[in-house]
């Protein structure tokens, strides 16, 4: 079988031992890899009540069957565990070059169990597999860690480094994991899980190859996909202007959150913070993940001024919004600096920006004072306040200790009505797409298995018409401002999107071709000759149901599938002014469509039909 290199390792950090973890071919085909396989392994281990930051919370770092091949967008891998931020299923996916590097070492995935008494790093260097002391790296940021490891492992091929910064070490609940300096496993706090295990870094360098089942068909389909991508307008926009290419358009359709979700339109902000502005000012060049013709990543330089930064990684759209529009501040250099600190400390810039925006909102209403903030005025429009908060939260200093647990926990601790100013679902801060302008997206935020998430499905791209998958039962146009009839679209968008993080493939590349193309690529790589779009969709449904069941086992019920008050409050202006998603209608339709019972659990027959009898036996016992 092609695609997989055939080896999974379990690393016991308590004992310092490394063993092989057998995974059958049947299991691989059923759960693919990445976050899909991680969910199944998590289920088998049954540690639903494990303290997310304790030794029993296993950490999965898994590639998928097409990771590291030349299928465009296949640079990705997934990291998964119980999330310290949400307390439920946590996962994040990341591009860069780690997945091909891991596979070149002859390894498809790693599972870290236990907890090391001292800082360690896991090294795969060609045939060598070892746990090494990392005491001298503890306390360094992710850029410093990457540089140090690349210096000490200098050679013909540069190693790929996964590392945590001070935020992960200090167990910030939304700590991220960096792949080198540009790419991050951002959401749900996987960096904190790594920090709790005192695992500072994972380093890979290898020379092996990935077996391809049908090299001729593989070459043909890869060429076709590159050609389709090069002709697609979204790819062109991403290449020229990055993921922030359409901020003005987003402003027009009511997609951009402003001042902690309180306003709906401000073109001055979007003009100042958009991708075209970045291209004209600080952009040095676009960069690509491994084997991606799009190259949406930004490399920028701020040559002078208070936010001076040498040439290095620049912000994506999400950060331009979370440290820009969300704070009602329009200094793009300030966003770039905030992004640098998020990267260096290793925090999810969405959760960090949203938690800080919540603090700004609290400050504006007198719920936090200068005394609380250590003398920093958290006034909307003032980006230095956010940078100061980043320093504090990464080190858990003063108010930083409150912010470091995320907005839900911070509001619970602060009280005084501050809970009404958060915008999170199941503990995960809502990403930078206002669901009041996209009611299908609102539903997907409510039902996503990792909390408010825009990346575990294709709903956003489908609802905005960026990805036209008309061959799989989707319409060409959806009215974002309507809640009518959205459930079937959301369900299909989930079933199609969930396997991407199992394969593991970049969504942006997938916007440019059809599922039939993807399935041909999977067949050529793996040799699964009868793999079809239908099997792909059924796999998506299976993985969604499995993760939902895991969440049920970790306490999620229907009451958790809800929108926060912030989002149930109509905006005063912009395209979505006066409108809010019809929560009851959306959820009622969806529960029927998906086959969930009144408590929010998948029905037994639905699990059975999806090939999840063993999950049914545990969930409904």
């Amino acid at each position, binding site marked *: 079988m092609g695609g997989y290199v055939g080896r999974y390792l379990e690393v016991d950090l308590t004992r310092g031992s490394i063993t092989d973890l057998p995974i059958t071919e049947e299991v691989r085909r059923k759960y693919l890899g990445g976050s899909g396989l991680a969910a199944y392994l998590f289920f088998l281990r049954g540690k639903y009540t494990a303290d997310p930051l304790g030794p029993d919370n296993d950490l999965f770092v898994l590639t998928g069957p097409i990771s590291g091949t030349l299928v465009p967008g296949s640079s990705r891998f997934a990291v998964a565990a119980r999330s310290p931020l949400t307390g439920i299923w946590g996962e994040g996916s990341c591009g860069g070059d780690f997945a091909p590097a891991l596979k070149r070492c002859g390894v498809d995935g790693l599972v870290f169990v236990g907890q090391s008494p001292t800082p360690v790093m896991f090294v795969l260097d060609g045939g060598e597999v070892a746990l090494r002391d990392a005491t001298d790296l503890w306390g360094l940021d992710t850029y410093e860690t990457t540089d140090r490891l690349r210096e000490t492992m200098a050679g013909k091929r540069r190693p790929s480094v996964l590392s945590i910064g001070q935020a992960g070490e200090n167990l910030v609940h939304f700590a991220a994991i960096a792949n080198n300096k540009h790419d991050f496993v951002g959401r749900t706090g996987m960096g904190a899980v790594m920090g709790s295990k005192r695992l500072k870094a994972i380093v890979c360098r290898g020379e092996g190859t990935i077996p391809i089942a049908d090299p001729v068909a593989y070459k043909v389909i890869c060429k076709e996909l590159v050609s389709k991508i090069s002709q697609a307008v979204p790819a062109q926009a991403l290449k020229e202007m990055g993921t922030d*290419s359409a901020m*003005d*358009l987003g402003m*027009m359709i009511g997609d951009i959150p402003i001042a902690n979700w309180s306003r709906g339109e401000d073109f001055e902000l979007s003009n100042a913070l958009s991708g*075209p502005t970045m291209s004209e000012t600080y952009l040095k060049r676009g960069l690509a993940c491994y084997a991606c013709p799009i190259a949406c990543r930004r490399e920028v330089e701020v040559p002078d001024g208070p936010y001076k930064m040498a040439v290095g990684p620049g912000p994506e759209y999400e950060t331009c919004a979370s440290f820009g529009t969300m704070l009602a501040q329009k200094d793009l250099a300030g966003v770039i600096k905030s992004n640098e600190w998020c990267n260096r400390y290793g925090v999810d810039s969405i959760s960090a920006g949203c938690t800080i925006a919540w603090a700004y909102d609290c400050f504006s209403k007198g719920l936090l004072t200068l005394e609380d903030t250590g003398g920093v005025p958290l006034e909307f429009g003032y980006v230095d306040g956010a940078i100061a908060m980043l320093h504090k939260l990464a080190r858990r200093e003063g108010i930083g200790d409150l912010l470091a647990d995320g907005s839900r926990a911070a509001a619970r601790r602060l009280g005084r009505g501050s809970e009404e100013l958060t915008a999170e679902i199941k503990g995960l801060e809502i990403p930078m797409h206002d669901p009041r302008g996209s009611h299908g997206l609102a539903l997907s935020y409510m039902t996503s298995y990792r909390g408010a998430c825009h990346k575990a499905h294709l709903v956003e791209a489908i609802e905005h018409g960026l990805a036209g998958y008309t061959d799989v039962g989707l319409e060409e146009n959806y009215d974002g401002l309507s809640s009518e009839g959205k459930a079937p679209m959301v369900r299909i968008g989930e079933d199609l999107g969930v396997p991407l993080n199992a394969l593991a493939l970049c969504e942006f590349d997938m916007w440019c071709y059809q599922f039939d193309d993807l399935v041909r690529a999977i067949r050529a790589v793996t040799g699964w000759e009868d793999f079809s779009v239908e099997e792909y969709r059924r796999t998506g449904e299976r993985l969604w149901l499995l993760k939902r069941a895991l969440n049920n086992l970790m306490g999620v019920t229907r009451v958790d599938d809800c929108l926060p008050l912030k989002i149930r409050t109509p905006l005063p202006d912009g395209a979505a002014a006066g409108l809010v998603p019809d929560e009851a209608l959306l959820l009622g339709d969806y529960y029927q469509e998906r086959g969930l019972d009144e408590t929010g659990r998948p029905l037994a027959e639905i699990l059975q039909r999806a090939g999840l009898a063993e999950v049914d036996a545990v969930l409904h016992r």
Partner: protein
Amino acid sequence: MSIRFPSEEWVAAFFKAINESPEYLEGGKPWTYGVTALVVNPQPEIGLTEAYGIWLDLHEGVCREAHACTVEEAQTAPFCIFGDYARWKQVIHKELEPVKGMMQGKLKLKGNLQIIVRNVKAAQALVTCATRVPTTFLDEP
């Protein structure tokens, strides 16, 4: 009286609507990037045997000139937007926002995408002007 789209009369009425529009005067102010040509792709079954071009010399919130043109002339403009008849009809009915349509590949742009995506307000105001032209469509009885 309704005017057939596309036709010279429609172009003249569109020109008038743009220059009478306070929305375009405001929203189109940042547009200093030259002529935008719109091309309706041919569709013989509704009587549109050749591509139909609309030349719009837009500058700082006013339309300095508008005329019907050939597809060849349209392609000399710095911005040329191509679309099927049904797509332009959706635009005039405000069912398809043109910049979004370009991102979705429903309208094809020849020109600088960066300039287009940052001028969504100008595009929106132009569409508002088009909706003010009483229009009949070739594919309707």
